[in-house]
């Protein structure tokens, strides 16, 4: 039966497309778009969850820059230190490991890929058990016992409570679990490259493996490099709760492991200054946006 009205026509042609999209679009809107917009709007208000949000202009942002001593002295430097080492560091490591794995035959490659990927399958809460035992502050702790046996330290060290070590441990633990989906994408990308490209390059005088990586491998898999970069950036900022998980307290001891994510929780859920917390969230989202733009410039495919 042919459709009669123009609405029925539209429904037949385009309607089903929107129908298929609707569930995802609705959930996307409610749980991603609205919260991001709400964070943006709330960041211009004073909001303590009891009274209705009161508009205060840029006050939260000004306070963040001029009055929030903790933020400027600890949170921002910590976040930058953590992000610079874990982000680009973890990303470079993921690429190099993917490249090394691609040099192996299929069976050992799959085995090693599984081993390297398996830490990223673990959850923060499950691994907290392990880290707390390994880095335990008394002499029963594995690291302490090991170092004391070797005679490197005399007294057990409070690894997770000590401002000197907490950040280092956070970085090691996060790098340990950073070979995730971006790593798999880059491995797949390297394996997809047409072998003839390498042969052609060899004829053109590309001789060392390093030259091969920079002139053939990376340019041929820019899309995967970009995907990996975005995943690394998101993973880095998403991993921010690790300091609180390890030390068991927010704020972390002497703010040594305090990252921007913990700062948001501190203000939002402990002090109920939602407007201020929202402003910090917006700063975090802008940081992610900035780094993603940056990697876009590095790995954009030339059209």
């Amino acid at each position, binding site marked *: 039966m042919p459709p009669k009205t123009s609405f029925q026509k539209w429904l037949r042609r385009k309607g089903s497309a929107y129908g298929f999209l609707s569930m995802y679009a609705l959930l996307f809107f409610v*749980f991603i778009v609205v919260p991001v917009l*709400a964070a943006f709007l709330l960041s211009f208000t004073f909001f303590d969850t009891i009274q209705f949000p009161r508009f205060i202009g840029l006050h939260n942002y000004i306070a963040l820059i001029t009055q929030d001593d903790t933020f400027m002295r600890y949170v921002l430097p910590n976040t930058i230190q953590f992000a610079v080492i874990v982000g680009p560091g973890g990303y470079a490591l993921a690429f190099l490991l993917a490249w090394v794995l691609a040099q192996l035959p299929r069976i050992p490659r799959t085995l090693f890929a599984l081993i390297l990927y398996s830490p990223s399958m673990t959850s923060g809460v499950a691994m907290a058990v392990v880290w707390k035992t390994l880095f335990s502050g008394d002499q029963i702790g594995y690291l302490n016992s090991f170092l004391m046996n070797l005679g490197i330290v005399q007294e057990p060290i409070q690894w997770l409570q000590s401002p000197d070590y907490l950040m280092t441990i956070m970085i090691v633990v996060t790098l340990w679990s950073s070979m995730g989906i971006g790593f798999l994408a880059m491995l797949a*990308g390297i394996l997809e490259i047409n072998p003839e490209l390498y042969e052609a390059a060899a004829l053109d005088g590309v001789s060392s493996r390093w030259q091969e990586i920079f002139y053939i491998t990376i340019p041929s898999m820019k899309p995967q490099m970009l995907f990996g970069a975005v995943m690394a950036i*998101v993973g880095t900022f998403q991993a921010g709760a690790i300091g609180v998980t390890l030390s068991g307290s927010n704020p972390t001891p002497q703010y040594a492991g305090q990252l921007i994510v913990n700062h948001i929780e501190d203000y939002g859920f402990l002090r109920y200054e939602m407007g201020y917390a929202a402003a910090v969230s917006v700063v975090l989202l802008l940081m992610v946006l900035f780094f993603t733009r940056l990697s876009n410039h590095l790995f954009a495919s030339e059209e």
Partner: protein
Amino acid sequence: MRRNWFRRFTGVRNRGINPQGFHVSQLKFYLLLLPLAVFMLLPIVFIFSSAFKPPDELYAYPPRFFVVNPTFKNFTDLFSKMSSSGVPVSRYLFNSVVITLVAVAASILVSSTAAYALSKKRFKLKQTLFAVNTVALMFVPIAVTIPRFLVIERLNLLDTFWVHILPGLAMPVGLFLLKQFMDSIPNEVIEAAQIDGASDVQIYWRIILPMIRPAIATIAILTFQAAWNNAETSALYVNTESLKTFAFYLSTLTTATTGANAVAGQGIAAAAALIMFLPNLIIFILLQSQVMSTMSHSGLK
């Protein structure tokens, strides 16, 4: 004969990317990877080892890494235990299993239908919507915990079963991977089906879904990991103890860092951590080849 054997390990075909067999030049890579693999595996081996340790080995001094007399005592202790509010541990596990199953099924449905529209249908907003989703790849959920809390509160989802499921269903990475994978299905297949009079729903169900199995396996894994490992939803959005997840219960075991509770809980916590980790591992091993074939479509242009 000898010569051939030798050539097997030095031949040109075994050098470079994706070699067919072993070659002496690969030795350096093995030397690099082996210690690293040991480092990556140590904490995981440690969970296995601790979960089966009897109490005297857990608190032995000097501490021993590997278990000597393995026992299931930690597991039986775990399941005979009640949480402080009187909910048996098996209840948390049951919640986690149900939540994870529903989340995986719903996520596959939601993302694959949307991916079908974005990949194979023609409509005005198509490019824009896909671009929006690509931007959302860099969405960091942890940054908007607070506004999300307000949204969930307004929708009356606080303290319900669905709060575990709904917020995670719109997963930009999942939609992205599915759509990219679907793009590799030739349009002719769909046109042929249309000529045969198949409706959109039939095409989606009978043709598209069977052809994108690897991508579905991949987002099933991603959703599984997110849902199974999720302790935050229970901590932030759920009050009723009998609605919380196993991951949350585990986090209550590990936050007791001092005093007698920490000492008593360590073996139990290790057993629980093993229960958390094993399903992730098994599912990934079963589906890893599907994941890899999806990942080769993951490029971001």
